[in-house]
């Protein structure tokens, strides 16, 4: 996957998070891809994680079966992108970016 495609996936993930969690005052540019999503950083909580798990699983057909996998996947947007790519489903999202 090219750098451009990876960047496309990162942007898609940012938009998915904003849409899923209805983060009204947050734009994609406000989310730093290397910063933690939970606690500090974007300040999401564990209940937000429930919605994100369902949204990511639906969008990318990957499974987040337990909290440990979730912790690794949701460490940051970059970690989430790596997780989606590792599971082999990132292509679909980056295709949309072209």
């Amino acid at each position, binding site marked *: 996957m090219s750098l451009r495609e990876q960047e496309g996936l990162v942007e898609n993930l940012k938009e998915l998070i904003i849409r899923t969690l209805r983060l009204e005052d947050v734009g994609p540019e406000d989310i730093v891809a290397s910063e933690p999503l939970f606690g500090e950083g974007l300040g999401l909580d564990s*209940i937000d994680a*429930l*919605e994100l798990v*369902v949204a990511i699983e*639906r969008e990318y057909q990957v499974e987040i079966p337990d909290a440990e996998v979730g912790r690794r996947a949701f460490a940051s947007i970059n970690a989430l992108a790596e997780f989606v790519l590792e599971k082999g489903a990132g292509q679909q999202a980056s295709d949309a970016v072209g």
Partner: protein
Amino acid sequence: MRFKDKIVLITGGIRGIGAAICKSFLQEGAHVVVTYSQDQDQARSFQKELGPGGSNTTVHQADASDFDAMKTLFDDTLEKFGRLDILVNNAGIRRDNLVMFMSESEWHDVLRVNLQGTFVCCKLALKPMIGQRWGRMINIVSPSGITGRQGQANYAAAKGGVASFTKSLAREVAKIGITVNAVSPGVIETDMTRSLPEQTLAELKQAIPMGHFGRPEDVSGTVLFLASEEAYYITGQVVRVDGGLT
């Protein structure tokens, strides 16, 4: 038709309170998926009893505490209807005994069906309901689980556990448009209560401020209210439908 085209899954839904809940949802336009554990004859007669209205019902034999069996049923339901709106955990068994004489299997069986069964079905309902940002879970508990009752320590522990589980899960999903409540029917005229000894029934009647047993419809009315749009701001509650017993 408050529940037109809503998809409802009820465990233990072919007799007594469960059957009344099923019929009430059907009358209000829902599609109902019902489970039962063993009694195939009862399942057949229940389907016959539903008559033409039964076309919106599917009846499945499944142990509510068996994760794999229930996952298959949930997956099939989601594949067929594309959603799951309402879950009613009604499947329950009793194995009454004084604690000193209670076998491990009497303890484990009751905990497994009543408590684990509720956990399994709520867990399986979560992802579809979170995806919809709408859902209603209603768990049937018992006065035994609220006040305790001699000879029912296992059942009381299980139902008390379900009540606490209900309150905890309600907090986990409150932000997502999903409510989780429990209904505690008092002494309701069903096969389960009819199996109690005469003397126990007489004592129970005496303890009920209203002076009589409830009807399955009294419980189903409360369940349907909690499942309705009107009840969106009620979550984590144990609603007692018991004539003032507890």
